[in-house]
């Protein structure tokens, strides 16, 4: 049977993709951010995942507002990065796992999560940046991927509780797959940031640190929060924390914190990295 070995979180800011392309790993601005990743890569080396399910939001590459799904999932043999309008270099394709994806779809829809299914899907920085961070130098081609998109672009967004429950359903889906596969779940985006409005540049370190603490052992504290609560406390785009909650829901009750790093700012954003092992 397939099993979930753990979860990772990472911010997915486009500027990180440019910094990777320009090798800025030792640059004083970037170093405290990039230095968080080797410990997570070591953990990945130890747990050897076959498949990464990447929970992110599309930023207007694969989906436009003509058809904006709340939850969507990839079922393609490969996923390509494409021009997003402003020049992050495009990178080699990501390997898909279509049969595994269709198993997830069957299970999730059977579990009352009615996913939009995508047999072709372009993946933007929300997906590519975390994959490049955890599997550097294009070594991500060693792992198969399933993109799982949650809408954070157009309100109404699904609630924190709903996203957490999606994660729980995802766990049931993975664990009912007959093949012995190790699966890691990536929750991307966040932490606090706001790009638009007079409140642009809003960052809330105190709230972020609370999120990084509580999501490990007490994720239920977030389940009564509304999207408006998240926007108020974490900024308009900080609502991406729902993507982390979906990841956490998939890990089960007990997890072990392997590694964490919090650094701000990168671009307009406070960044958070968590590495959580399911074998608590």
């Amino acid at each position, binding site marked *: 049977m397939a099993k979930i070995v753990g979860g990772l979180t990472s911010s997915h800011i486009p*500027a990180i993709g440019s910094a990777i392309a320009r090798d800025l790993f030792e640059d004083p601005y970037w170093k405290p951010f990039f230095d968080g990743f080797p410990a997570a890569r070591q953990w990945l080396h130890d747990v050897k995942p076959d498949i990464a399910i990447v929970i992110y939001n599309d*930023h*207007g*590459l694969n989906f*436009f*507002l*003509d058809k904006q799904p709340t939850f969507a999932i990839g079922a393609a043999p490969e996923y390509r990065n*494409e*021009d*997003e*309008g*402003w*020049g992050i270099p495009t990178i080699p394709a990501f390997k898909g796992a279509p049969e595994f994806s269709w198993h997830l779809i069957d299970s999730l829809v059977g579990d009352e999560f009615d996913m939009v299914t995508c047999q072709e899907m372009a993946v933007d920085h929300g997906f590519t940046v975390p994959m490049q961070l955890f599997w550097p130098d294009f070594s991500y081609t060693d792992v198969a991927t399933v993109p799982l998109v949650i809408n954070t*672009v*157009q*309100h*109404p967004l699904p609630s924190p509780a709903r996203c957490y429950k999606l994660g729980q359903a995802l766990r049931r889906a993975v664990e009912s797959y007959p093949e012995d596969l190790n699966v890691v779940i990536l929750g991307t985006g966040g932490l606090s940031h*706001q*790009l*638009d*409005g*007079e*409140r*642009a*540049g*809003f*960052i809330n*370190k105190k709230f972020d640190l609370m999120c990084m603490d509580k999501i490990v052992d007490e994720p239920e504290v977030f389940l009564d929060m509304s999207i*408006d609560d998240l*926007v*108020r406390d974490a900024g*308009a*785009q900080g609502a991406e924390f729902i993507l982390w909650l979906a990841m956490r829901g998939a890990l089960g009750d007990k997890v072990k914190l392997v590694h964490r790093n919090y650094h*701000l*700012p990168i*671009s*307009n954003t*406070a960044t958070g990295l968590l590495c959580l092992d399911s074998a608590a």
Partner: protein
Amino acid sequence: MAEHEPIPGTVKFDGKMAMKGYALNKMCYSFNNAENREAFLADQEAYMDKYGLNEQQKQALRDKVVLDMLAAGGNIYYLAKFAGIFGLSVQDIGAQQTGMSVEAFKEKLLRAGDE
């Protein structure tokens, strides 16, 4: 449509804004394609007409004023593609929206971890 308590300095991009900004956001979505970016730069007025932008949207783009684009229904993820054509980063547009210099805005971000 449900009313919600406003959060200061924050436009909630909901159904109402999605309807209002549809043409503007659709035009910005077209900028994922390099040929379309070139066509826009070659004749901005004709390109805006082609997508059916209203006068409020057109003027906001002519002026490059982000708060006006938001008021006209622009969604920040799509406006970022417009900003990119002119080489404007999220710090540049953050500075503009908050009435700060870009240097002061970057300094504010760097200091956000101090307290």
